[in-house]
């Protein structure tokens, strides 16, 4: 079962992106597509100082694993799936989430990686608050389309 080597983690520490890619790299891979979500210095022009992420940890890991399962159903050629989400306080340009897909060919890796981050933003129980120079605000999430 290829998916036993997949990686789904929630952490307070900075994400070791290169380490994650190395843990997922197999001889059968010809493509690694990586999505790295980093803290942007503004939201619609308003200056952001930092972000604060909060996670429902055990459920977040379950939901990330579920995304991995969905990917393997849709793209059986995927070699490995890795998702690490960080929580706690994050500064500008720090990574909040890193998603790595390895596969023999590039199309599948791109599609699966994009699916993973789109889905993560719908289903994984994590919330962020933006800290501005003059206040703070929870970011409004989108309502999930929970698969029955």
């Amino acid at each position, binding site marked *: 079962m290829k998916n036993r080597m997949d990686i789904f983690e929630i952490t307070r520490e900075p994400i070791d992106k290169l380490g994650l890619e190395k843990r997922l790299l197999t001889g059968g891979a010809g493509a690694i597509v990586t999505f790295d979500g980093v803290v942007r210095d503004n939201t619609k022009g308003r200056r952001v100082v930092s972000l604060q992420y*909060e996670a*429902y940890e055990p459920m977040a890991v379950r939901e990330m694993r579920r995304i991995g399962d969905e990917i393997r159903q849709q793209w059986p050629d995927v070699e490995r799936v890795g998702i690490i989400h960080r929580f706690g306080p994050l500064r500008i340009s720090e990574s909040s989430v890193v998603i790595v897909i390895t596969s023999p060919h590039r199309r599948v890796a791109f599609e699966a990686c994009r699916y993973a981050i789109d889905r993560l933003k719908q289903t994984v*129980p*994590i919330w962020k608050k933006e800290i501005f120079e003059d206040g703070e605000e*929870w970011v409004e*999430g989108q309502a999930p389309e929970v698969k029955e």
Partner: protein
Amino acid sequence: MSDNAIKVNVLLFGACREVAGASELQFNLTAPADVASAWAEIKNRFPNLEKFERSALFAVNEEHSRKDQPLKDGDTLAIFPPVSGG
């Protein structure tokens, strides 16, 4: 507690946690209970949560759940706004 009393663990996250000023508590409910009846009790205790009436999401034992999901003794009910990770 009477025979038809159940205890559920309630977790609050994000803006719901902040508005309620609580992150984890135990609630005593009367069976039969479901997410909707628990949510009504919780809003009684924390009237500020009323603003999440339309947006709040629920998870029972770490699975996304609808309001008609039954609750049994020992279940964990999480209440939170739409997720905004990534």
